[in-house]
């Protein structure tokens, strides 16, 4: 089982972002690192100075680097930027079908924001150059199995750790909450490094907002499910970065995948982490995503 560190979905400060990847490069036993801005293009300028060094450092450490692209490109500038990224040396991860069009058949990774719900869609995307497909978070194991059974050129990846992204919107909820518009947002999302909790009026933990994205409050943690998923043909798991110790999390997953620890021991390591929400795994069991089954 290969391990992928997904892109940081939150608006971390530049030094924090660069430090995170420096540690991942040196210490995390992972195979692939996907980096780049997925949620909001207004965050990108702060990254562009640092990204070259970060990529170089990751590659020197032997990581396979993939560059992520926006989940909801709307502006011409945003679409042009995807084209520029796609024209570079690295494989890109597409998160909107517009990017697939721009790639014109070049090899790429399909991110979890693209709707791949069945084997026929997988076939179409493989024909267009997909080499890895990270499936949407709501798929049950049964569907994952049916899709993976038909794979030919694409590896199948599933989210194993992190708050699942549940929706994207033209509206920025961080800006809305602060009575600001998206265009004059003052980058208020940088205050919430794991997303901002959305609780029900009865105090139940429910969702989290992150710019234009709505995330689960619960943190997906797949442990004992990985055996079934590996048997189903899943060959990559994705760990989505949070402010907890991602080196410890990825090391525990490496140990689980290599048989050095069992799922209970993985859960014990993860439960020690300061997670932003309760542990959930309902989706893969065909239940509500908010439950632990």
């Amino acid at each position: 089982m290969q391990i992928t560190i997904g892109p940081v979905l939150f608006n971390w400060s530049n030094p924090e972002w660069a430090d995170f990847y420096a540690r991942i490069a040196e210490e995390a036993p992972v195979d692939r690192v996907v980096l780049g801005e997925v949620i909001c293009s207004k965050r990108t300028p702060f990254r562009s100075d640092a990204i070259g060094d970060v990529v170089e450092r990751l590659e020197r450490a032997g990581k396979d680097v993939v560059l992520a692209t926006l989940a909801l490109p709307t502006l011409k500038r945003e679409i042009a930027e995807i084209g520029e990224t796609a024209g570079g040396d690295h494989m890109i991860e597409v998160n909107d079908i517009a990017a697939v069009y721009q790639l014109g058949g070049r090899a790429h990774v399909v991110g979890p924001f693209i709707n791949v719900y069945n084997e026929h869609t997988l076939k179409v995307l493989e024909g267009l150059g997909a080499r890895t497909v990270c499936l949407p978070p709501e798929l049950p194991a049964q569907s994952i199995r049916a899709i993976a059974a038909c794979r030919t050129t694409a590896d199948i990846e599933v989210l194993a750790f992190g708050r699942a992204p549940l929706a994207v919107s033209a509206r920025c909820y961080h800006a809305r909450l602060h009575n600001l518009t998206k265009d004059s947002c003052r980058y208020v999302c940088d205050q919430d490094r794991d997303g901002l909790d959305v609780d029900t009026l009865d105090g139940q933990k429910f969702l989290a907002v992150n710019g234009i994205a709505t995330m689960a409050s619960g943190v997906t943690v797949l442990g004992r499910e990985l055996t079934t998923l590996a048997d189903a043909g899943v060959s990559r798991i994705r760990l989505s970065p949070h402010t907890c110790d991602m080196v410890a999390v990825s090391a525990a997953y490496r140990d689980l995948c290599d048989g050095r620890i069992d799922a209970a021991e993985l859960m014990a390591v993860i439960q020690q982490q300061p997670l932003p929400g309760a542990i959930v795994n309902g989706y893969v069991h065909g239940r509500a995503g908010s439950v632990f089954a």
Partner: protein
Amino acid sequence: MTSRTIYGTQKTMELICPAGTPSALRAAVEAGSDAVYCGFRNETNARNFPGLNFDDEELREGVAYAHSRAAKVLVALNTFARAGNFGIWQRAAEQAVSAGADALIVADLGLIDWARKAFPEQRIHLSVQAAAATVPAIRFYVEHFGVRRVVLPRVLTVDEIAAIAADGACEIEVFAFGGLCVMAEGRCLLSSYATGESPNMNGVCSPAAHVAYAQEGTDLAARLNGFTIDRYPDGQPAAYPTLCKGRFSCGGKTMHVFEEPTSLNTIEILPALQRAGVSALKIEGRQRGKAYPDSDGARLPRGVGCFAFGAANAIAGAVSIYRR
């Protein structure tokens, strides 16, 4: 009926009304709709609600009736086919084509590809559930799969619609009235996170089977699978607990974090939509049957009538469909 034209030569905006049931289809056609859209009574369409939709025979009758009145029938196959069960969606497409559907409204990339190959002549419209909101996304579906029309997301501005239409890749359809999804359609898993059932997989959002209202002191709590979506003080009218329209606590505030419980109404901007190059206007609400707001809702068919109906009796008929 001045607006009835053959596809491809139409100049006025086509009015497309929802047909949740065979009787709603007849009513909409009688009222002068240029087209109706409907779906099968299963998970292949995104309004998979109890008591709604068509079986094979009802669709055949509906298409025959609509065609006898020069109206078109667009069949929504707009959920994402469940892995390992693609045959259910294939059969639905076969039945729709066999019944004489004027277009299939499809969102799933795999199903679009299959339908294009199985029925090369069949007109395919890209469902709003595919969330194609940019020129390259639309060109992707047009160039690879010959999609003839795209239904745009409900969150775009008139200027954005005009820019997309100006590209001229295919016809543009927009929602004119009804429910408002503030999330990118087809890219929202909130419902399955709370309930296990989602628009993409099950054709439902915030499904009624998971709704519970509880009187608690002076408050009425509206819940979805145990999650409180809103609380209403005594006497305040309670809305259906649609996830994204609820009130929540966030950042020290209590508010409609995502969207107010409002609907879309384009009555004021219909001329602008026409100038923007929109080919067709869609009224949301197959789940509403014949019941539709008499107040706000009735205003839209009147306005649309100025452009699409052009006949007073047709407008009156359309209005009658939308009575609550």
